[in-house]
């Protein structure tokens, strides 16, 4: 049927239009632009580390031990004579990997648990909510330490434990948002229409809370990046791999500060702060652009 094709084409180009308008609004937002640039840079140096790193990050003695910054070693060397800049460029990979993967997993879990918690009234909703509240009681940091000590500190173990521990807080936010969306007449009318619960959650509730899910996901990544750094700094990270957190751990362990080797710490510390900051910028810009109340003015309206 020709009309069907026309409409299908029409609505997909319409969707693309909306996406373009969203992108324009996002990039004209100052926070969005700055955050994207910073994050883009971090991702770029991490991905392109083998191409741009001046030395092999694991090679000992490429310079003198604890050499201060010089033309050969822009950010000096560590106690084993490894190039700090090269190690920094590689270190971003683990930080980003852990941050993004456990952030995404935690947000997915939070959505899968938070939406039914808010949608089902009565006993089912209360049970799920109680489960969320009970999970909130566990002190995440202590558990990470214990888990890393027992299960070993491979990267995937760290990702697993961070994901397991960081879903309850976003789940509560998503539950709260679901509660308010659920009270809308359009949810009630879809119920009266004979639609199943799953369908209502997916078709009616989820699209309305997606901005909240995104904003939470980004914040979650900030949290997991910082957690990974903290775990690494305590020496509980995967010491066989370079991450900004473990760089700081070795620097601290070899008393870099008291021996005056500031260059050893400044780059990884800077990397962690910058990564967290850029995620916060992106998250805040997303919130501004996707917030339905601001949306109409910036990009939603024709």
């Amino acid at each position, binding site marked *: *049927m020709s009309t069907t094709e026309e409409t299908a084409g029409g*609505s997909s180009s319409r969707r693309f239009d909306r996406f373009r308008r969203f992108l324009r609004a996002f990039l004209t937002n100052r926070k969005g632009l700055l955050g994207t640039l910073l994050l883009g840079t971090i991702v770029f140096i991490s991905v392109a580390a083998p191409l741009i790193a001046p030395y092999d990050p694991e090679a000992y003695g490429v310079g003198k031990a604890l050499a201060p910054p010089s033309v050969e070693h822009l950010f000096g060397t560590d106690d084993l004579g490894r190039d700090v800049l090269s190690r920094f460029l590689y270190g971003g990979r683990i930080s980003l990997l852990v941050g993004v993967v456990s952030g995404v997993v935690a947000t997915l879990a939070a959505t899968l648990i938070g939406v039914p918690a808010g949608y089902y009234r009565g006993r089912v909703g209360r049970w799920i909510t109680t489960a969320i509240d009970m999970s909130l009681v566990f002190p995440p940091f202590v558990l990470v330490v214990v888990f890393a000590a027992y299960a070993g500190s491979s990267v995937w173990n760290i990702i697993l434990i961070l994901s397991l521990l960081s879903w309850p807080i976003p789940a509560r936010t998503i539950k709260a948002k679901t509660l308010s969306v659920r009270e809308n007449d*359009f949810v009630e009318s879809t119920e*009266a229409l*004979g639609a199943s619960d799953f369908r209502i959650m997916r078709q009616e509730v989820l699209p309305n809370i997606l901005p909240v899910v995104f904003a939470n996901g980004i914040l979650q990544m900030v949290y997991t990046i910082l957690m990974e750094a903290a775990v690494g700094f305590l020496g509980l990270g995967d010491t066989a791999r370079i991450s900004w957190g473990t760089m700081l751990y070795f620097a601290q362990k070899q008393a870099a500060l008291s021996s005056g080797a500031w260059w050893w710490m400044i780059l990884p510390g800077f990397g962690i702060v910058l990564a967290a900051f850029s995620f916060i910028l992106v998250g805040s810009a997303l919130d501004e652009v996707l917030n*339905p109340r601001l949306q109409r003015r910036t990009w939603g309206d024709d």
Partner: protein
Amino acid sequence: MSTQTQERSTDAAETLLSVRNLSTYYSEDEADIPVRAVDGVDFEIARGETYGLVGESGCGKSTLGLSLIRALPPQGDIVEGEIRFEGREIGQLPKSEVKDVQWADISMIYQGAQNAFNPVKTVGAQIREPLRVHDIVPEDEREGRVRELLEKVNLQPDVAEQYPHELSGGMKQRAAIAMAIACEPDLLIADEPTTALDVIVQAEVLNMLQRLQEDLNFGMLVISHNLAAIMKLSDRIGVMYGGKIVESARAETLYDAPKHPYTALLLRSLIDPRRPPDQVETIEGTPPDLRDPPTGCRFAERCALATQECRDGEPPLESVGEAHETACFHHEEVSEL
């Protein structure tokens, strides 16, 4: 209007919906004293007939509508009575079995259709939803069916690709009607179909409902506090007060010769532009507390005709003329009010 409606209601003898002694209560939990929002209501609607339900806010008319389509909020419960739809008892059916009846056979235009649309989905996608849930039209024909439906309610077909905030209130109301008739239901419940619309759009919507009813021959239950709108649409009207139907009659009979003091006062509170505003009357007092309704007639407290008899016992709904019932001991004195 009168001759035509009379013909219609006598032709359509086949009963579509019959409600017997229906009671719907709201309570937060077992220990709570229930609110008796609907308390022993009887009425029936014939195929193709329009039954109007009128009464002030909180009298239970919306609850009655939601009971019929079995979409009560979780605190609400049908505690007694039966709802027979095309001969089938649907009032006590489990939720899973009710889903086939919902929308496919009984659909609803929600109070405040403005909010009945999901802001992040296109209007077309939402009108398509009932077709998809009930799988009535094959998938590749649904798009065309949505366009047909939009045309039926005088909307441009390209409204299907628009988002709710791009439509005016009247357009949204018409889109809600399109959604309600999507599965060609046998009974359409219209809860306050004209509230929040300006008078001209109101008239359009009412005419449209009437026209669609003639085309599709569905029974209609119109719920409103707007007596004028109800009068225009309905063949028969039930007046609800405090969870009960206190008077039921053909629209014109009710208008010319009300037999319940509440109906009479309701008619006098109608705003008529030809009458000076100081002659518009209000009804003194407030509706009864439905957690603890008075023993006798529920209107006695606000009624000028009330006697001790009214406070002691509840007047039954009795026939006072052809297809005219009222629940008042003093119905003969109402004309003198």
